[in-house]
């Protein structure tokens, strides 16, 4: 493939964003201001105090968050109904663009993932792209950062199987790094340093991404039609959910996201954001401007930037490269966690990454809107602790009021229309407004659906979709307090520089195991029960108001277990609940993916593998050994890898001595680093293969004898 020509960046035409931004955020501020006045009036009626000032401050902040969310829904709805020209796909006629001679790399960074799923997703994308007739303009790269030697070997073996199946040798490539420096962003940077100059564009996919071929071609055409654009982010639809939790989240994503993203695009325009995957990037400016610096100070705030995507988008925007959401392009998919606990695990990582953005928030030269994206990301996680603080302050005030025996209402409302309202009615009004602001985007999403016959049918009809919204709302009401407690824990831990431990959960055949749920949720249950008892004793009326929050906590264990069940997800599907377009009419890519995964599910050996099975395979299997050794030899061609291999000690006498120890004493007698060195040394591995098969049994550790026996019994 020829070297990508360097494009001279033309100054992009800037859309008029100022008014949009002003109108959008003014709407949120106006709404917040009005409702906050009502709330302040309520507090004033009961007698002002320092704790009430705190409560009002928290209310203003929290209401502003939900008002901004609501405005995204409202503006998105208006744009969906009346249309807009200010979207990337409408700015130029991109479909007539030719992509002849344009080279694009599609990269799949992986880190100890489910290899079968990653490769089948890649296969589905590859075959879909093949159907467009433009396959030869694209190269696929599996960029492995896997640290588990078993995964490493499995990835190599499956890669070889995949390229043989698809006849894609020289089209689908595999590269594993020797170290994990910089995590995912370092992985992509390593790819760019090795091959970036060959490609004008590169597309980043996640391990669970699937892309439609036509969408990929459209993205390249859009890039060609808009030379000033540096990155186009698609809006991946969540698919393939099976558990009840997964299907609820999937339904919410597919139904609400179009409105929210349309609203987001309204004010962001060409200063959009990057979500780390399912996006196409112009290679040259990315390589020039987006190598991330190390942040000063210690972790969790200092060091490597964890959530690199937002920062990379900000750096591209700083250099006047447009970042757009292609929210009206279908055919971009991802998968989502299947249980509350898995979801919390992801939230933990994202929380740390987003909080770290506070370090770059004030970086010089960043665009104001980039800072706004960073702020919104941070606020998403600060909302949890602030809400908890709000509830505690509210409880404190109520307890204090009750305990001191002060009259609850001391003054009439300042607002003449509420002058004769009781305090309870006044509070109820504010509560209803808050609920309306939260629920409005959901209602608008349903109205939007009602006007679109094809979409309506894809969701199983308006009645089913409405039932789905009700069910989703009930679930999210119970789920929200758990997120509040988790986010609080994550934020506080991060602020104190402590990492929250998160061991892998025990899974039952059908979802989260009870033991695992108890381990994760016992403290939620305890908080819910203690809080509930205290409130019951304090004020029974207030207790009933708090039941949604308390119920979520107290019932967290069964909620977590039951919503993780695939059987319940299937039952809901049978009842046509939480249906999504990809379930009612699955696109060919997803049909192909599901079919291949089903074949694997039915035919793959599910018995747990022996410890160090990957190492045994790399040594004993003549083909896996040959693949592994060939890939290691190819690494030597890159001076950076060659240097790294030499630094590790590959090819040294020490590596050979470790090989001898491995044969004589077995892998358990070597440390993990020593095993990694053996696995990284081509010469030692060829020698090991020969010796393992040539040596008499008495010169081999019992482990080898067991592995050879196991090997001979396997159906190969």
């Amino acid at each position, binding site marked *: 493939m020829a070297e990508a020509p360097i494009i001279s960046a033309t100054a992009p035409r800037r859309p008029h964003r100022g008014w949009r931004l002003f109108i959008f955020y003014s709407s949120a501020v106006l709404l917040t201001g009005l409702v906050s006045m009502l709330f302040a009036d309520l507090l004033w009626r009961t007698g002002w105090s320092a704790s009430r000032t705190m409560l009002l401050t928290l209310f203003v902040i929290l209401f502003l968050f939900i008002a901004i969310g609501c405005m995204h829904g409202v503006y998105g709805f208006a744009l969906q109904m009346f249309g807009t020209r200010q979207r990337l796909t409408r700015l130029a006629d991109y479909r007539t663009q030719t992509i002849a001679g344009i080279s694009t790399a599609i990269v799949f960074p992986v880190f100890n993932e489910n290899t079968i799923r990653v490769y089948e997703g890649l296969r589905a994308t590859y075959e879909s792209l093949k159907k467009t007739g433009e396959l030869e303009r694209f190269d696929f790269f599996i960029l492995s950062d896997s640290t588990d030697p078993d995964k490493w070997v499995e990835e190599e073996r499956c890669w070889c199987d995949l390229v043989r199946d698809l006849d894609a040798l020289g089209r689908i490539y595999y590269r594993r790094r020797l170290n994990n420096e910089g995590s995912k962003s370092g992985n992509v940077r390593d790819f760019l340093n090795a091959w970036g100059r060959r490609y004008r564009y590169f597309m980043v996919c996640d391990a669970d991404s699937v892309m439609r071929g036509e969408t990929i071609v459209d993205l390249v055409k859009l890039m060609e039609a808009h030379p000033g654009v540096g990155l186009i982010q698609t809006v991946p639809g969540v698919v393939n959910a099976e558990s009840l939790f997964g299907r609820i989240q999937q339904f919410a994503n597919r139904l609400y996201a179009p409105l929210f993203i349309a609203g987001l695009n309204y004010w962001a325009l060409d200063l959009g954001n990057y979500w780390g995957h399912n996006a196409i990037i112009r290679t040259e400016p990315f390589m020039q401007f987006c190598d991330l610096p190390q942040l000063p100070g210690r972790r969790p705030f200092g060091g490597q930037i964890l959530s690199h995507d937002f920062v990379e988008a900000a750096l591209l925007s700083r250099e006047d490269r447009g970042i757009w959401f292609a929210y009206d392009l279908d055919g971009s998919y991802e998968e989502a966690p299947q249980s509350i606990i898995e979801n919390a695990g992801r939230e933990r990582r994202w929380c740390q990454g987003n909080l770290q953005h506070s370090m770059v928030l004030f970086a010089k030269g960043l665009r104001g809107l980039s800072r706004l994206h960073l702020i919104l990301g941070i606020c998403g996680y600060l909302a949890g602790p602030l809400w908890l603080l709000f509830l505690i302050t509210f409880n404190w005030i109520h307890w204090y009021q009750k305990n001191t025996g002060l009259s609850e209402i001391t003054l009439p409302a300042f607002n003449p229309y509420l002058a004769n309202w009781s305090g309870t009615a006044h509070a109820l009004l504010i509560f209803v407004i808050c609920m309306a602001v939260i629920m409005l985007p959901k209602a608008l999403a349903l109205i939007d659906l009602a006007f679109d016959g094809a979409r309506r049918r894809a969701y199983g009809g308006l009645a089913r979709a409405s039932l789905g919204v009700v069910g989703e709302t009930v679930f999210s009401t119970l789920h929200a307090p758990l997120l509040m407690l988790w986010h609080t824990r994550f934020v506080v831990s991060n602020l104190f520089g402590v990492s929250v431990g998160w061991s892998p959960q025990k899974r039952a055949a059908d979802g989260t195991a009870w033991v695992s749920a108890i381990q994760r949720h016992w403290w939620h249950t305890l908080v819910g029960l203690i809080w509930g008892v205290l409130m019951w004793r304090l004020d029974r009326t207030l207790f009933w108001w708090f039941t949604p929050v308390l119920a979520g906590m107290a019932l967290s264990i069964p909620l977590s277990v039951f919503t993780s069940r695939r059987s319940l997800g299937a039952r809901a599907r049978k009842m046509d609940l939480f249906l999504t377009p990809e379930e009612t009419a699955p696109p060919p890519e997803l049909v192909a993916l599901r079919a291949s995964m089903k074949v694997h599910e039915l035919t793959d050996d599910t018995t747990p593998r022996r410890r160090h099975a990957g190492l045994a395979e790399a040594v004993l299997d003549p083909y896996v050994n040959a693949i592994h050794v060939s890939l290691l030899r190819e690494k030597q061609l890159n001076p950076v890898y060659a240097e790294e291999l030499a630094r590790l000690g590959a090819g040294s006498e020490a590596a050979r001595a470790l090989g001898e120890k491995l044969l004589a004493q077995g892998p358990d007698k070597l440390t993990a680093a020593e095993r990694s060195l053996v696995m990284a040394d081509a010469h030692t591995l060829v020698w090991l293969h020969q010796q393992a098969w040539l040596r008499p049994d008495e010169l081999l550790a019992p482990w080898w004898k067991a592995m050879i026996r196991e090997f001979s019994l396997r159906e*190969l």
Partner: protein
Amino acid sequence: MDVSMESAVSGAAGQLAGRPLDEWNAAYVKVENYFHALRVRNKALLGQLVLRVLERAMRRAPAEPDRSATQLAAEEMDRLVIEWFAAVLQESPANADQMLTTRGRLALLLADMPGRWQEQFLRPGPWPPEFVSAMSETYFRAGPDFQLSKMTPRSLDLGPITTLTNLGRLPYVRMALVWIGFALLLIGVFWLTHGGFEQTRSRLSSLIDWFTQFYR
């Protein structure tokens, strides 16, 4: 086969080529396992190949009494495979190095020997031209040619954050923090001695009262 089995196996009762039968059985299993690992799935072919290796080992056995039948068979298997790779890939077995065996095994895999060419494996030439070309023309690339470059991080002026993160390193900041702590202590003392103490005590006692009532 160039050596007859009868001449190779001659020896005392319960022995083959001067080795106990059990030893040859173990050697058979070892060689069979390796060919099984190479995915030679046809049982007849597999048995034939194993016997061929054993025959070579049995020829060596009388001259090398210190070595077990398994060792001899394994070595012969290795040699036979290398010689065959060298012949098919047209390389000299005398110069055979690690590269040849790796390349040979990879060629077997990519030419789909287990699926399409099982009967050709270890068979002396001439081989079908299609097989030879499949073996010799396969290439294995995990990536395109490197076009190396080096991304370098651009400096990012973090503004006040840089100042904040550097503050802790400055000696006078710690001193200022001590002063601030002292000032806060003074404010606390002032507050407690000007009604704050009573206020706190009254709030605490009412809280304790409430809890006492709660537990009754």
